[in-house]
């Protein structure tokens, strides 16, 4: 209907999008499009903390943080990006504090820090207090502060605009986006010199998830449809402590404060699996251990959950450090966690994979392998080497936050590193865009012909159908199928079943019928469109997981229980073409030179 013009368009108003907007606004005209009001973004649900080696509570160093992240990633994280993140972390947190984030404080007034899963001192010796926090609402205060700063800086917000398409012109440059104004039902074109995809995660692909209803993976699907691959989609994080049946998150901070997991026998079972860090082992490890306990009949009452026990913490500790989860337990389970243990089970929480970017958030569409190898190899001394490769970028396109894959999380993300990823790489994207505009000028790229065509046709097709299944039915089947076949444990058999099922579900999803055929605030229509995103995401997870015949981080293949660095030390790139065919390509992991970073060389991962 209308054409809007901005130098920068940011899609998504969570931590990454707002951070990018805040920093880009220092040298550009910035608009943020969000399908929600920005303050409803899911960053606000992040509870426990954001890690940075500030050393406010005890000795700490960025290199320790980087080591933990490399190891936590099961050696699939790109080590150059991890070093950048951990070095950038302290100053980024300090800037957040200067922007007004009300962090909890130490007695001497500094930002308080607490232990978190997988974060250790001195290369794995013992847990370290590295997570900066604001009680158990760290994401909430960061989200609100960033929105406040964007208002102060006069960033233009288009709230409740659902972005439907990314526009790339025949020259291969980003030209803008197409968005649906939910309130009016109008489709608009936004022209821009730079576009940032910061749309968050896809947890709603699974039945049990900590994620919001809004987390339908739209950004992943939009990128895929624009010919951009998705990286490492097989790596899906299941957080060990979701409230039983509801999936609502209980922060790892609860274990950081001293909470422990117990099985039916009352045994603190993590002592058996991870003798050094116990209940503060990384999430992939603990989620597997919980399922192992359940399989061996030690779930509570023989059922599929265990207990998170906080009853030995003081009431004051729970009230001051973990007030939100105490309230959630009270409201949703009728439980007072200072008296009774909380029933928990793993819940789909986070996407390690996503739109492939470099450490400045620049998106690439292809990799040129200069040595003909797509994975890492060992030299004569047994040191891991990264074969040379080049990236083919999409000019003007950036991605940040959960939808992006930098990759700092590799095969498994450590707790608190997602908030850190959002703010560090959101900030870097904002700064990189200002530099790009200064270097290359502010000319708006030409639009492709009839830019709104695909978006219009998709919506009109949904609106015009009077027969078909309901969105809810198809979505529920998809979510159950993913839960059954592609969750914590996987085998060739379950993945093959999933691959067949998703083809059928896609057919159904493309033929759903909705009740609401109106123009204004048609959330029925939006749910039907989002279902197509969920399907694209699920398909990318399934294909990537089926091909990877090893176990690494969150990708646990029961038929291939060992990590296989010789064959699989490489990133997956999943492509989907307009005819519906898919392709998997691979890219080496960036491993830093062994002479300089001996601790970063892949080895067995024990805790």
């Amino acid at each position: 209907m209308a054409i809007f013009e901005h130098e920068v368009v940011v899609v998504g108003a969570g931590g990454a999008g707002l951070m990018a907007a805040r920093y880009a606004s220092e040298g550009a005209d910035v608009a943020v499009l969000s399908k929600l009001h920005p303050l409803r973004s899911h960053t606000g649900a992040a509870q426990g903390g954001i890690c940075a080696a500030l050393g406010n509570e005890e000795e700490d160093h960025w290199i320790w943080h980087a080591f933990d992240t490399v190891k936590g990633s099961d050696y699939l994280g790109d080590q150059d990006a991890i070093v950048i993140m951990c070095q950038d972390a302290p100053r980024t947190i300090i800037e957040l504090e200067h922007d007004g984030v009300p962090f909890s404080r130490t007695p001497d007034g500094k930002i308080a820090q607490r232990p978190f899963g997988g974060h250790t001192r001195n290369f794995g010796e013992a847990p370290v207090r590295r997570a900066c926090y604001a009680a158990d609402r760290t994401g909430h205060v960061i989200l609100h502060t960033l929105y406040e700063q964007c208002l102060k800086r006069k960033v233009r917000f288009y709230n409740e605009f659902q972005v439907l398409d990314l526009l790339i012109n025949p020259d291969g440059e980003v030209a803008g986006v197409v968005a649906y104004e939910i309130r009016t039902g109008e489709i608009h074109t936004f022209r821009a010199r730079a576009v940032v995809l910061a749309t968050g995660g896809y947890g709603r692909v699974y039945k049990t998830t900590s994620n919001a209803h809004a987390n339908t993976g739209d950004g992943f699907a939009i990128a895929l449809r624009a010919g951009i691959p998705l990286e490492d989609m097989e790596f899906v994080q299941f957080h060990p402590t979701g409230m039983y049946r509801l999936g609502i998150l209980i922060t790892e901070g609860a274990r950081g404060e001293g909470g422990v997991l117990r099985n039916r026998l009352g045994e603190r079972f993590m002592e058996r699996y991870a003798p050094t860090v116990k209940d503060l082992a990384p999430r992939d490890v603990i989620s597997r251990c919980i399922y192992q306990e359940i399989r061996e009949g030690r779930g509570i009452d023989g059922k599929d959950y265990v207990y998170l026990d906080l009853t030995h913490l003081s009431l004051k500790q729970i009230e001051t450090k973990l007030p939100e989860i105490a309230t959630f337990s009270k409201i949703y389970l009728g439980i007072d966690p200072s008296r009774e243990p909380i029933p928990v089970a793993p819940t789909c929480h986070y996407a390690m994979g996503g739109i492939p970017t470099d450490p400045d958030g620049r998106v690439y569409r292809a990799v040129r392998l200069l040595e003909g190898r797509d994975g890492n190899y060992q030299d004569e001394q047994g040191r891991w080497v990264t074969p040379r490769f080049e990236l083919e970028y999409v000019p003007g396109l950036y991605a940040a936050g959960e939808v992006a894959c930098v990759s700092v999380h590799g095969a498994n993300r450590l707790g608190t590193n997602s908030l850190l990823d959002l703010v560090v790489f959101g900030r870097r994207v904002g700064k990189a865009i200002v530099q790009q505009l200064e270097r290359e000028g502010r000319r708006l790229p030409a639009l492709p012909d009839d830019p709104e065509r695909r978006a219009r046709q998709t919506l009109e097709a949904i609106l015009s159908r009077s027969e078909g299944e309901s969105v809810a039915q198809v979505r529920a089947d998809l979510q159950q199928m993913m839960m059954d076949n592609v969750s914590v444990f996987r085998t060739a058999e379950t993945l093959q079943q999933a691959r067949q099922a998703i083809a059928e579900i896609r057919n159904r999803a493309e033929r759903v019928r909705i009740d609401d055929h109106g123009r204004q605030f048609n959330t029925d229509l939006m749910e039907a469109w989002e279902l197509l995103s969920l399907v694209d995401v699920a398909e990318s997870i399934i294909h990537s997981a089926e091909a990877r015949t090893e176990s690494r981080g969150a990708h646990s293949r029961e038929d291939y229980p060992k990590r296989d660095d010789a064959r699989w030390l490489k990133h997956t790139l999943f492509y989907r073409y307009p005819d519906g065919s898919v392709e998997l390509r691979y890219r080496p992991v960036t491993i830093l030179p062994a002479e300089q970073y001996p601790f970063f060389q892949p080895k067995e991962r024990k805790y």
Partner: protein
Amino acid sequence: MQVTVKIKRFNPETDEAPHWETYHVPADPMDRVLDLLNYIKWHIDGTLTYRRSCAHGVCGSDAMRINGENKLACSVLVKDLGPEITIEPLPVLPVIKDLVVDMTSFFRKYEAVKPWLINDDPPPERERLQSPRDHALIEEATKCILCGACTQSCPSTWADPDYLGPAALLKAYRFVFDSRDQGTEERLRIVDSNQGLWKCYTIFNCVEACPKEIDVTRWISALKRRAVTARY
């Protein structure tokens, strides 16, 4: 159990005035009201329109009037409401469709109090120090999720829709009492007015409505005292 859900509905494209519709929904006592709305939308009538996102009381999307009180649909359970549940949009705000209201005026009031940290000193190398005691002064106020339940429950808002209302005043409090902030004077100029602080008659509806259990009236009263001290 079976519950009867009565919803005030309005479709701007077909209706001249709002009307009530009744649905019979199978429910568990531990279900959230949001679960009931989802059930209706997904299994009975897809045209039912409401906002929702996180579904556990942190995003603030789904504030609505439930059995006469402003609540988050995702934070109130069937067992606490009984078998008959009445749902309406938040009061005073213009209805866009069904339970979706136009929050523009609510957020305009929020923006009016300059809801960002004001501190023009060159930032130090490290964090600005803040004692735990100073932090405690604002901590509860920072829990606010801006859902609108408080402001739309306030009789002063009902009488004067331009009254800043509890959410915006709480936000002003949060910055005025932040030891790092230097904007007290300009903020007090905004809230020290008849459509600001002095239209709060300590009715405590906001406290009852707040899903985050913030003692809103207490903090507004502290801000009143601060305004009086600044004046005299």
